């Protein structure tokens, strides 16, 4: 049925290897975190998992040490007001100028809940496809070399939709 048959998800046995596609459109810590939990768990389940990162969702894919991204004054200002990198994501509510995310990470660390950057590593290790949206990269002035190692080649909406049409589970987070 799947003519692509890309073997993701490692060699964990999973019946006929069902697929799950997540669209991560939000850079909010409280959305990207559960998206990474579901993505990595899906791969652990032997599913072929793809996460398509678009709009603000691209910023968590930028390496934490990249201070500013952007191709011109406007896209640079965007990154200046909204620092990229998984370590700099904000909460959608109770952000409190960074206190909220700090507390959330502290709680997670105290209770041994995996941090977002650990989950990204797990995703890569378990073979999750991390696909950056090409159009959003151009729009936000992001370059491939500014993204973390291991993400796939930038793709378009049609490629994402093609994957979604083959997926049993599709989520927009």
């Amino acid at each position, binding site marked *: 049925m799947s003519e692509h048959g890309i073997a993701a998800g*490692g060699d964990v046995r999973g019946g006929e290897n069902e697929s799950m596609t997540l669209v991560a459109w939000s850079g909010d810590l409280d959305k990207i975190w559960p998206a990474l939990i579901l993505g990595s*768990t899906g*791969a652990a*389940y032997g599913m072929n998992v793809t996460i398509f990162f678009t709009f603000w969702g691209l910023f968590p894919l930028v390496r934490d040490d990249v201070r500013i991204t952007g191709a011109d004054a406007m896209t640079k200002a965007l990154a200046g007001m909204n620092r990229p990198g998984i370590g700099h994501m904000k909460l959608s509510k109770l952000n409190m100028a960074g206190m909220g995310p700090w507390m959330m990470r502290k709680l997670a660390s105290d209770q041994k809940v*995996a941090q977002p950057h650990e989950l990204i590593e797990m995703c890569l290790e378990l073979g999750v496809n991390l696909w950056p949206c090409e159009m959003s990269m151009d729009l936000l002035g992001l370059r491939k070399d500014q993204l973390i190692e291991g993400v796939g080649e930038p793709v378009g909406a049609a490629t994402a939709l093609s994957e979604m049409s083959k997926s049993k589970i599709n989520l927009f987070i």
Partner: protein
Amino acid sequence: MELQVAKTIDAKGQKCPMPVLLAARGIKELSAGEVMVIEATDGGSRSDIPAWARDTGNELVESSSENGVHRYVIRKT
């Protein structure tokens, strides 16, 4: 009956979904027929590990709990 354990995964203290992720990572390194032990303290693992084993086609040989540590024996099929 003594089982030959090829690998032991220590997921104690770790919360959902880490026990399942560590189990999935661990079982990739086993050959069919080999046995892996997973130890976890997360209460969610009591439903998650058996479900994961079943859905990935592996065999949950036994599970037990002692002093808050849940222990699962999984055979890769």
